[in-house]
């Protein structure tokens, strides 16, 4: 049998798992591993400029491909810098494996140089973690880590490896296992047939059905089944922030996003529905508004791979635990075999009502912003949608711009909308876009950001230069931490505590030039479209568009909280539903 060092075993194991890119940053405890990286070609290492970016890049890679994102960092500060990205992936159930170097086994616990208890620090934000104590266990541990990260409800897995374990001098047999056995972990595939039948009955009898699809449909590759279900039932469908693209956003059965900044029609339809089919969604507090007032007349069917998500905040009448694709396949079969058909008359009534809401409230029909005066952030996203033909990968940062990108760009395919929905991590956008661009070299990959968020991982412009990543950065510059400012307007009498920069913003155009990229500044409505077109015509360039917009704009519609129900929304600064 082949004999290899621990470091070589680790990298060979990654190659066996089909890892193309390893996003990382070197340091003392990881140097044996880095030497192993150097001596092979199968796995390409991408050197980021901050470990947080390594995790976000791996995350973007994972979200856009469905494969496991892989990260390598050193001990201590390398490991702790990775924490924000691990937590981001954890909250959105993204498959990721993070390998961290650790101090020598015999130094663990002695407060050795660059020692951090990585397994301990990461414990609440990982699906699982391993501390490898024996080089002969590396291959098996990697196999387990990838299996755990990518199956069931996906999530990040940490492998912490003390330096002595990867010592090039000590050699071990290498034989990569083809299977793992974990007696305590058996992801559920199929749902319970009896429950699925009950769901079918309810859906066929529904007079005001509503389909509420979340990130689980994207992660679980079940969009096709979802589309077929919507068609069969002739039911309206809403996507969550994480689920945008699960059902095509520009299709007429899509009523848009639901929740705090969702469309009024989606939230109204949820509120008035008699049967809600929630699939791969988790009744997040940003969706439900006040849980006790949530959808008073609805029977709730909830399909999720994670039993702990079911009846967590809102009780399900028909809980179904299973992989969304398998459950939807079975549900479709059952519905097709039924003699009963959806209630055409009731549905016609329902659609009539929904179309009335649309006419009255839809953001595409009546913009939620004034179209005069300064350029508006919403207009920027709409123009971006047109210029990219709605077919770009949009990687968003966090803030108002994120909500505008969710509202005014329409996602017709899954995995095109990449955002930190659960943790809301500013700084996510640019590194995530790098990971997406690595996976889709010829695609239009856009980072929609704000002048606040971009400065949280702006060092990655250097990584873009090193790997020729032609990411297009659309910075919606409202000269403020806009989302914070909006809340301060609404709840604190416009006392802008620490949400303004006092003219300290850098000249982004010059900054881009310093990195060898292209910077463009836009201030006028008239030049927006053309400049965007110029930007996207530069196929091989990293381009940053610094677009100055109205700083007074708020994101609407917006749930009225606390105490509000799904249908209670602000339409603009003064009007409400």
């Amino acid at each position, binding site marked *: 049998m082949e004999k290899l060092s621990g470091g070589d075993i680790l990298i060979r194991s990654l190659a066996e798992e089909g890892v193309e890119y390893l996003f990382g940053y070197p340091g003392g405890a990881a140097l044996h591993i880095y030497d192993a990286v150097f001596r092979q070609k199968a796995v390409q290492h991408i050197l980021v400029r901050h470990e947080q970016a390594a995790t976000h890049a791996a995350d973007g890679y994972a979200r856009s491909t469905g494969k496991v994102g892989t990260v390598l960092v050193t001990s201590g500060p390398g490991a702790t810098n990775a924490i924000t990205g691990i937590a981001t992936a954890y909250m959105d159930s993204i498959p990721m494996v993070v390998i961290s170097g650790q101090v020598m086994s015999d130094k663990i616990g002695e407060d050795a140089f660059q020692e951090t208890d990585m397994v301990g620090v990461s*414990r609440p934000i990982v699906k699982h973690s391993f501390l490898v104590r024996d080089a002969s266990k590396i291959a098996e541990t990697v196999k387990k880590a990838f299996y755990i990260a990518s199956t069931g409800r996906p999530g990040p897995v940490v492998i912490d490896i003390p330096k002595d374990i990867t010592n090039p001098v000590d050699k071990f047999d290498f034989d990569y296992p083809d299977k793992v056995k*974990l007696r305590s972990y058996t992801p559920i595939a199929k749902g319970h047939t009896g429950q699925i039948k009950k769901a079918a009955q309810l859906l066929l009898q529904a007079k005001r059905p509503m389909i509420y699809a979340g990130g689980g449909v994207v992660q679980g590759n079940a969009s096709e089944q979802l589309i077929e279900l919507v068609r069969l039932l002739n039911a309206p469908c809403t996507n969550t922030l994480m689920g945008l693209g699960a059902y095509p956003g520009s299709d007429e059965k899509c009523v848009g996003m639901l929740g705090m900044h969702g469309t009024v029609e989606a939230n109204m339809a949820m509120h008035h529905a008699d049967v809600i089919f929630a699939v791969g969604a988790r009744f997040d507090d940003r969706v439900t508004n006040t849980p006790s007032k949530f959808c008073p007349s609805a029977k709730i069917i909830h399909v999720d791979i994670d*039993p702990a998500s079911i009846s967590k905040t809102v009780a399900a009448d028909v809980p179904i635990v299973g992989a969304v694709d398998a459950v939807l396949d079975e549900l479709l079969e059952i519905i097709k075999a039924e003699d009963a058909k959806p209630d055409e008359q009731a549905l016609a009534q329902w659609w009539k009502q929904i179309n009335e809401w649309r006419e009255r409230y839809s953001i595409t029909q009546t913009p939620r912003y004034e179209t005069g005066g300064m350029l508006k952030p919403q207009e920027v996203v709409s123009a971006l949608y047109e210029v990219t033909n709605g077919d770009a990968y949009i990687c968003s940062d966090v803030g108002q711009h994120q909500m505008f990108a969710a509202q005014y760009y329409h996602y017709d395919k899954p995995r095109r909308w990449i955002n930190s929905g659960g943790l809301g991590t500013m700084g996510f956008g640019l590194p995530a876009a790098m990971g997406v661009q690595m996976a889709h070299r010829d695609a239009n990959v856009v980072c929609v950001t704000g002048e606040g968020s971009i400065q949280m991982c702006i060092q990655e412009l250097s990584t873009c230069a090193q790997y020729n990543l032609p990411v297009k950065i659309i910075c919606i510059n409202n000269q403020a931490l806009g989302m914070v400012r909006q809340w301060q307007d609404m709840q604190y009498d416009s006392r802008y505590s620490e949400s303004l920069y006092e003219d300290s913003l850098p000249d982004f155009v010059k900054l881009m030039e310093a990195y060898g990229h292209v910077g463009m500044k836009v201030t006028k409505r008239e030049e927006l479209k053309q400049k965007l077109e110029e930007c996207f015509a530069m196929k091989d360039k990293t381009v940053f568009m610094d677009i100055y917009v109205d700083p007074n704009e708020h994101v609407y519609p917006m749930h009225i909280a606390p105490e509000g129900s799904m249908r209670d929304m602000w339409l603009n600064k003064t009007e409400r539903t």
Partner: protein
Amino acid sequence: MKRIISLLMENEPGALSRVVGLFSQRGYNIETLTVAPTEDASLSRLTLTTAGDDHKIEQITKHLNRLIDVVKLVDLTEGAHIERELMLVKVRATGAQRAEVKRCVDIFRGQIVDVTSSVYTIQITGASDKLDSFFQAVGEASIIEVVRSGVSGIARGEKILSL
């Protein structure tokens, strides 16, 4: 309501901290906790007591089951079960008190396991509420030190928790 949750988990470093961490992370309370290896050296058995309504307990058991290290789990309070806790207690016992304490220990079927001229060390086993009532019987004032093992439990009859 008090619940006794008993589980088998991988006998590996970090497993216990994951279980305990889950409780603090999700804002659940652990009242008692015991862990020890089982006849199968690769498994530990952990028993904990916690309180909460059905919804909370359901969430706790689901989240425990989600931990990769947890192999099998049972809520013993859902069925007939035997609950035991061991307590060692030092009681001040001088003069006439000595006979009084001794009588009390007998009633509770405890044992005096160590004696000095002024102190009895007493061992009592039983369900937690029995141990609680011993305090009242002997008089809280005379108790100088208490150590309790936390609850262990097992289902009655044929029902077992094993792989």
